């Protein structure tokens, strides 16, 4: 196994994790492919949102329902959580004691949950204003796109919790390592989608 073989884009598990390296190549490549298919789904929902942006049918409009404050706070929280996940990945790569890995995973989880709480609060506020998805095509497209991202974040939080349990139960073995790497990809991917959401949905909606 030469050093050149089996190098995948992203965090590399070199010595002393050479065996994990070989498995990782295929596993992470496959996960990238999955993320691409997920990206297509998000892209289509972005396109649907763009096409239905004006289907407000006399109801609430983007500038009427979006609030920049909460959206900005959610952005900061999510970006920070990507940073903390990065710290977790580095802890894992450099063989830090599992306490540190658990700690950073836990912080990421907490930030993820905070993001979700704020987002749900946003939606409830919109509902209270009569901006429900049943009100218009525009609101339907908003509530397909943004909550889909939220569902992904929720799945990521569940995954984080499961990984934390597995770190405790199994230690940082090969399977745990690969799954933390995949979760990392997933988490950063969601961050990128959120940046798209923030720009295309919230910023664009409020610049009127």
């Amino acid at each position: 196994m030469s050093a050149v073989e089996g190098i995948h884009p992203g965090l590399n598990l070199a010595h002393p994790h050479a065996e994990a390296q070989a498995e990782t190549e295929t596993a992470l490549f496959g996960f990238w492919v999955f993320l691409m298919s997920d990206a297509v789904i998000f892209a289509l929902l972005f396109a649907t949102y763009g096409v239905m942006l004006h289907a407000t049918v006399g109801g609430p409009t983007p500038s009427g329902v979006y609030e920049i404050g909460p959206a900005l706070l959610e952005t900061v929280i999510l970006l920070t959580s990507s940073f903390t996940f990065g710290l977790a990945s580095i802890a894992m790569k450099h063989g830090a004691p599992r306490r540190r890995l658990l700690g950073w995973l836990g912080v990421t989880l907490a930030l993820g949950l905070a993001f979700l709480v704020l987002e749900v609060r946003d939606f409830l506020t919109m509902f209270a204003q009569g901006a429900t998805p049943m009100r218009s095509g525009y609101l339907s497209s908003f509530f397909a796109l943004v909550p889909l991202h939220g569902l992904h974040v929720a799945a990521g939080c569940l995954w984080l919790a499961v990984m934390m349990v597995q770190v405790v139960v199994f230690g940082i073995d090969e399977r745990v390592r690969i799954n933390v790497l995949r979760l990392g990809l997933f988490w950063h991917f969601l961050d990128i989608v959120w940046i798209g959401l923030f720009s295309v949905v919230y910023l664009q909606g409020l610049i009127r």
Partner: protein
Amino acid sequence: MNAPLWPAVFGRFGWMDLPFVRAWQDPSVSEIIGAGAGGLVVFGGLAVVVLVTWLGRWGYLWREWFTTLDHKKIGVMYVVIAFVMLSRALVEAVLMRMQQAAAINAPGFVAPDHFAQLFTTHGSIMIFFMAMPFLTGAINYVMPLQIGARDVAFPLLNAVSLWLTAGAAGLMMVSLVIGRFSTGGWTGYPPYTELAFSPDVGPDYWIWAVTLGSIGTTLSGLNFAVTIYKKRCPGMDLMRMPMFCWTSLCTAILMIFAMPPLTVATALLALDRYLGFHFFTNDLGGNMMNYANLIWLFGHPEVYILILPAFGVYSEVISTFSSKELYGYTSLVIATMAIAVLSFTVWVHHFFTMGQSANINAVFGIATMAIGLPTGVKIYDWIWTMFRGRVRFSVSMLYSLAFMMTFVLGGLTGIVLAFPPLDYLVHNTLFLVAHFHNMLIPGLLYGMLAGYNYWFPKAFGFRLDETWGRISFGCWVAGFYLAFMPLYVLGAGGMTRRSQAVFEPAFRPWLYIAGIGALVLLCALVTLFVQLWVSIRNRESTRVPVGDPWNAGGLEWSIPAPPPEYNFAVIPTVRDRDPFYVEKEAGNAYPRPKRYEPIAMPANSMTGPALGVLGAVTAFGLVWHMWWLAGLGLAASIATIIARSFVRDLYRIVPAAEVGRIDRRWRKEIDRAKPIGRAVEGTPANRGLAEVEAA
């Protein structure tokens, strides 16, 4: 039961949702057919359960088939699903043809509602539960063998894909017994399929069956692509891969990118139907045109997903049965990739008539013509493969020849349809129906049947019966022409598709011929099963244990028939294209390994069947608004996935001694067998060892 309790437990189910009750209330021919179909499903299911119990084979089935992660067995199970669903959908087609022949200024015997469900299930089953499983099964079985791998990249994911597909197919069968199916066609256009116009369970069955299947397919595509990229044996460069692997790769890429639009389209429709969203409704800002775009962003690449594996089969079959290397390998590769890329640029041609500007229509029309170009290149490359070869007319080769002649006609009518002004005339008429069946039957189905006849001996160790193979072939070809050529004429005369009755006497002779054609196709199906039965009965005289019955060039022929679980005792190293030919010509066809190593194979897992069942249960709950069941199913699915992630024992080691024992037993067969020439390929003298002149 208590009035509020019934809907809480049983959702919107009522007794009239059973076809038996409906037929009791209204014993018309149409209802009795429906009840009969439902009865067949119940009876058939029970019969299978009783038979397996009586034979005491539940343990065997569970161990060897349901929980296996072996790509070969998974491939076989996919093809079994395909054959079962082909039978159902073909019978549905016969019913429709009979109805149209009978209902010329007369009511016929199939009521309009029943007829509409028939054309919807026929299309949905043929595409999602016959064609997709058939080609997925073929790729599953053959591709890892051809690239010298032991399994696909993600064996568990492979099993999950299979069982999701099986669960979805099961849901389709359940819809015959409980409730009804959609009447909106296999593409389910809103607003017809919205609550306002179809509040019944039909569209929901369609949505969830298609969604389950599409998730399975996306995961399969992912699996195949990663396998081809990462699991090729040493020396197997991309440009040394068999053409079937190239088409598998492009098919896989299409699956990865084309299934998500379908998932989005059905998901948005589900949001409309379940939560009152307004994506495609007539009111409050919905726009049905978005659905058309989404569904055909999926739908057009989908038809290339259907045809590319068949093209791969033809490359293999034509080369082998011409005893000649493929002509124009590089051109074929370029053409395949061009088809894959271009398939994403033509989707609007499915709705030229939706009112967009002439410029848009013209651009997509030209793109549609462009995509015919690489396909034509492939056909010529196959013709030139036969040139200066030695052509043998095996069953597989017959299908390939019939494909080349007949598919071209479909391509021509495709060019006609690519012209928007002509499409305006024949869109949604039987001309269109004739065109796409002209592509799918001679293209996809003949390809799958050619592959079936070609690789069956490898999978099961004995050849299929040639005589019944030819009879079946003859029926498929004659039946196709009789059933579909008249449809071109009828379409040119303005007869629309999906018509439960017609009112023009001029249509009569053509509908009669088409009806006869449908019956001939039914014979084709029956003779296909007869071929299988006769083959099993006569298997001792057609055994090919050495594994190379056709003197072919791919790695899959260099191992025993049937292959051991781990495929190769020693992973081969490849020196060129058609690697097995290269070794045979060098006199090194079956090199004896110096040493046998233990082999780690994926351990069995019940995750696949569990997710398949739970997925179907969740879907059933959603269809009937049994929210507790849907919630439980979803929760259990998530729990299953989490539980699986805690499993650490993922491998089963096959000891070196076992590998050696299996290999030595095979080598005894090689020593015992006499190498044969092609002239006696179809006789019992063929034990799977080919006589090859040294190069």
